[in-house]
């Protein structure tokens, strides 16, 4: 009898308490900024407008999501060993998540698996890495970018003529040959080249006469361009597949002065835009480095929070030429920085 009454009273309490608390609402599902996330970002190179923009994007996201961002990059885009060491360090420093722009598709694969073993999620940005453990890839579609470049260059050449390509690679001293069949190249470089060549193959009168690979160095690119022009005096077009190569080749063409040589560049550093405006370069394929950096950090935080992240985030590519470079939407894309 007593216990029955007590039970009833307790039940009443419980019902009332429930009624009161249920009125107070639930928390929304956005990233919690109460916790500081340790994000390590390792990119290919510590120089160049492209990687600075990636970094700026990452920093913008870091501010927004309360991230302690550690930014690391080797001096050169081809320094695979240095990148591996950096990933290993980040594992030792117990990063919450690692964002990696791999200089080599296969070269970084093992260390990524190692990070996964220590339960550190890895997100790849810009260039993919040969590991199934990667949470997500944020970047552009290299193959498509290569095709866009080829399409415009062949169009500029009216569909015939000799074409030279300046690509980039990991090989600083001919390492590629010693590794045999294993592909140690950067994935994005390979994809762009493949896209370009596959598109160009549809045109019988177009001949890709030479593909040169530059390490991450403008002077090297300049030299390769000069060599190419000397070797192929009938060259009508040059396609460059990254920022360094584009700047080197652009500089050579600018020195030569206006001529019949057409060039389609890659990426949009301010100097490249100057060349575009003064007619040295006819077009450039741009990626979205700011977005790459920003989204990589954003998804990194979401991954550590245990949210579902998409497997692949394509930030897109765009072909910019003199006509469309001042369109308001392209202005915003080309010059994301107001100050």
């Amino acid at each position, binding site marked *: 009898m007593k216990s029955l*009454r007590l039970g009833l009273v307790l039940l009443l*309490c419980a019902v009332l308490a429930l009624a009161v608390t249920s009125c107070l609402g639930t928390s929304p599902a956005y990233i919690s900024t109460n916790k500081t996330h340790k994000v390590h970002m390792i990119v290919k190179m510590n120089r160049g407008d492209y990687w600075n923009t990636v970094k700026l994007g990452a920093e913008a996201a870091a501010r*927004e999501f309360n991230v302690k961002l550690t930014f690391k990059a080797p001096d050169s885009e081809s320094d695979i060993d240095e990148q591996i060491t950096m990933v290993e360090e980040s594992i030792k420093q117990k990063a919450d998540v690692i964002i990696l722009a791999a200089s080599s598709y296969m070269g970084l694969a093992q260390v990524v698996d190692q990070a996964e073993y220590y339960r550190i999620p890895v997100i790849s940005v810009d260039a993919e890495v040969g590991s199934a453990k990667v949470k997500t890839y944020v970047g552009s579609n290299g193959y498509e970018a290569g095709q866009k470049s080829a399409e415009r260059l062949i169009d500029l050449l009216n569909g015939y003529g000799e074409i030279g390509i300046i690509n980039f690679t990991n090989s600083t001293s001919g390492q590629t040959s010693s590794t045999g069949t294993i592909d140690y190249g950067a994935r994005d470089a390979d994809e762009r080249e493949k896209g370009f060549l596959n598109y160009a193959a549809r045109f019988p009168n177009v001949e890709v006469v030479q593909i040169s690979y530059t390490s991450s160095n403008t002077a090297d690119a300049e030299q390769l361009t000069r060599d190419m022009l000397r070797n192929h005096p009938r060259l009508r077009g040059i396609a460059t597949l990254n920022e360094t190569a584009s700047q080197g080749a652009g500089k050579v063409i600018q020195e030569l002065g206006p001529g019949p040589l057409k060039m389609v560049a890659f990426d949009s550093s*301010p100097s490249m835009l100057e060349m575009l*405006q003064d007619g040295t370069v006819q077009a450039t394929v741009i990626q979205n480095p700011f*977005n790459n950096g*920003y989204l990589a950090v954003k998804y990194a935080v979401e991954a550590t929070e245990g949210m579902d992240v998409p497997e692949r985030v394509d930030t897109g590519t765009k072909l910019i030429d003199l006509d469309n470079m001042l369109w308001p939407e392209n202005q915003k894309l080309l010059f*994301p*920085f*107001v100050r």
Partner: protein
Amino acid sequence: MNKPKAYFFPHRPQPRRKGKLRLPSKLRSIQLIITLTFTAVTVLVAVIVSFMLYNKFAATAEANANMNMQQIIEQVNYNLELYVKGMGNIFETAEEHITSSPSIDSPLLSERMDMLMSSREDLVSVAVFTPQGKYVVGTPGQSMRINTQLQSQSWFTSAVKNPEISYSAPHIQNLFKGRYTWVVSISKMIEYKENGQIRKGILLIDFNFRTIDELSRQVKLGNRGYAYILDPLGNIVYHPQQQLIYAGLKYENVEPVLEYKFRSYLDESTGEKRFITVRTLDLTGWKIVGVAYYDEIVTTKRDLNHFLAWFLGVVIVGVIVLSILLSWLIASPIRKLERTVKLVGEGDLNTPIHVSGAYEVEQLSRRFNMMLQRIRQLMDQIIYEQETKRKGELEVLQSQINPHFLYNTLNSVIRLAERGKTDEVVTMIQSLSKFFRISLSKGKNMITMQEELDHIRHYLVIQSFRFKNKFRYEIRAEDEVLACQTIKLILQPIVENALYHGIEMLPDEGLITITAGLQEGLIVIRVSDNGLGMSKETLGTLLSGGGKSSSGSGVGVRNVNERIGLVYGREYGLAFESELEEGTTVTICFPAVKSGEGPEEGREESVQ
């Protein structure tokens, strides 16, 4: 006083009313009802009051936050207006310099322009172009790029079309070599002199975002709130996260902003509640938009929420504890009363009820006590009245004995007198006179055994004359017995019985023996005869009054038994032993009380 401990109000269970649905009795207990009602009412009131207070406070908090925010945005709006006016002033100054200068390429003009440039940090460039898009003069003296497409740029076209000063949307300044900068351009068609000729030209002044940025950065709307600037077409002029906006990573819901010049509303398009406040600059049509996150700005509301939840919890627990206590206090006297009344219902009229508690309960208990008392009084009265009535009857009976006996005796005396037996007549009259003297005994009910035995002796003497010495008698009494009290005239009806029923029809001589003695504090009187005796059936009906004798006083024996029972208690009285043809013995038994110490005339005094 021998109060019968009978149960006068036997408990009779009332038949249950059927048909009406009733809760189980446990759930209808006063305590539970009080607890639940009290709790429910208090909690309901607390919830309603909290809800009303919450709504009131929340509305006030919201209004305050809103007003606060509007003031901030108003301030920013004012500052921005000053800034835009400043830009206009600079433009006018530059225009004045140019129009007043005798020649556009005079060194004085370029010096003045340089001074103007250095006066403001946010000035990027000042330049004059011909309506055909040719560069005339500018500061700082940059060289122009080719392929500028300046004639299609908005600042150029609006200057050509519009005679007023026009403010452009933010755009990239691509005219001069060196760098690309985001600027806001002010332009207007002006006149200038070149080589003495008046020409038309377009004056362009570019401002960067430094000052606007500083102005907007001062805006603090909670931790995450911010302000941004829209141009009349909906382009974002300035946004603290402009990079994200330009990169397409962040969106502002500008459509409702564009519809009004002056507005405050709640926006939920991003999934989060945000306060939006819009003010419009008159000069440029720019809109300054304040964005504040609702949950940050209205912290009072959240605090209030927490407080109220906490408060309600405490109130509910408190109320429950309090109401249990209170209902117990109220209900326990009632329950006590109920228990006592139940005892009374079971027949225990002597249970006193002393229940303290609420006034009503106390009154109820008092009244119940009074009622009980009254019941007891009434019962006593009934007993008294019953006894008095019975006594009255007995006295009537008793008074009937004597005239009957007198009549018989006098008849015998007459017969003796007729036969001239004078001695016998004298003895008879003597005995009769003594008999009556004792019978009267000054009206007392109780007499000594001595007197009673004398009385019966006289009776027997008289009767022996009437029965012509048909019987003998013996009276033996112990000496201690003689001084004891007895009810008067208890032996006469028994002896009378023995004579009329036992001996009268006996062919032989009869014998009546009366013995009186003490046994364990009791007086035991035996009246034996050797008469006819009685059958078991007659014996059984003797005291119950069923068998009414044809002669004698009739009710005599029962009368004796009743009287002894009334005076001494039901356990005392007469006992019969009888055997046909052998005789009968009547035993009278009652407590021995010495004369002068016992309940003399006790009954009349003891009752009231």
